[in-house]
């Protein structure tokens, strides 16, 4: 178990460093299972990704063992999607994730560690599809 200050110092050295690019195909069966899991029967999702689907194509955060030495578990603090082009069945989407910030905040049961991740998604034509900003909380 490490202190918040130690965790922040260690994770700060990772800011801006990109994880390995992950490329995944948008498959009709995967879209269907994802829409069914949300319980969204809109037939539009037979060919197009629903708003939050991109998170299913690649991990949305880097595995930071330094962070896991702090606290007892993860919480998702929030997600922000910015859309540039739709992701359609057959698209090859490449995701690249990086740490953009780390800080702490006092919570009701002790300090919370906030790590902000950003993921850029591009398609097989090199077009930007979306950017996701996520807040992972270690508690």
């Amino acid at each position, binding site marked *: 178990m490490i202190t918040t200050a130690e965790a922040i110092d260690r994770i700060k050295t990772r800011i801006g460093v990109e994880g390995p690019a992950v490329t995944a195909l948008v498959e009709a069966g*995967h879209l269907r*299972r*994802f829409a*069914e*899991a*949300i*319980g*969204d029967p*809109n037939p*539009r999702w037979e060919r197009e990704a*629903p*708003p*939050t689907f991109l*998170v*299913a194509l690649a*991990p949305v955060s880097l595995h930071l063992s330094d962070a896991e030495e702090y606290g*007892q*578990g*993860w*919480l*998702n*603090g*929030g*997600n*922000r*999607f*910015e*859309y540039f082009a*739709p992701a359609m069945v057959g698209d090859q989407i490449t995701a690249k994730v990086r740490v953009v910030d780390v800080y702490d905040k006092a919570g009701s*049961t002790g300090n919370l560690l906030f790590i902000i991740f950003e993921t850029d998604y591009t398609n097989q034509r090199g077009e930007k599809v979306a950017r996701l900003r996520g*807040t992972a909380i270690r508690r």
Partner: protein
Amino acid sequence: MKVEVGDEIPELVKHPTTRQLVQYAGAQGDFYEIHYDQPYAKSVGLPGVILHGLLKAGFVGQLVTDWLGDNGALKTFEVSYRGVDMPGHPYRCRGRVTRVDGKEVELEVWGEDEGGKRTTVGTATVLMRP
């Protein structure tokens, strides 16, 4: 579609079950045990298994796309999770129009538990088709 500030969009009520959490874990590929393993969830101080934040985001996303239909495109969608929610309880997604600037429309959106507590709060911006 005519849109005015203050318009409420039709609500969407979900009835999440533990089965759905497992289904979602598989579909997203998020196998963090707090979403399906009761003893594990309790061991890390949670009241039991909880909904994935991104599942709640998916519910709220559906709220927006059901309302929008083919009348425009989603430009940004942002949610913050303010509390944990457990399966077996209805989850009510709501929203209203907060800004109309030409073709750009901003919505305040949220998900609330059966006590009316907003455990997911967010914003969506859409570009309406002419």
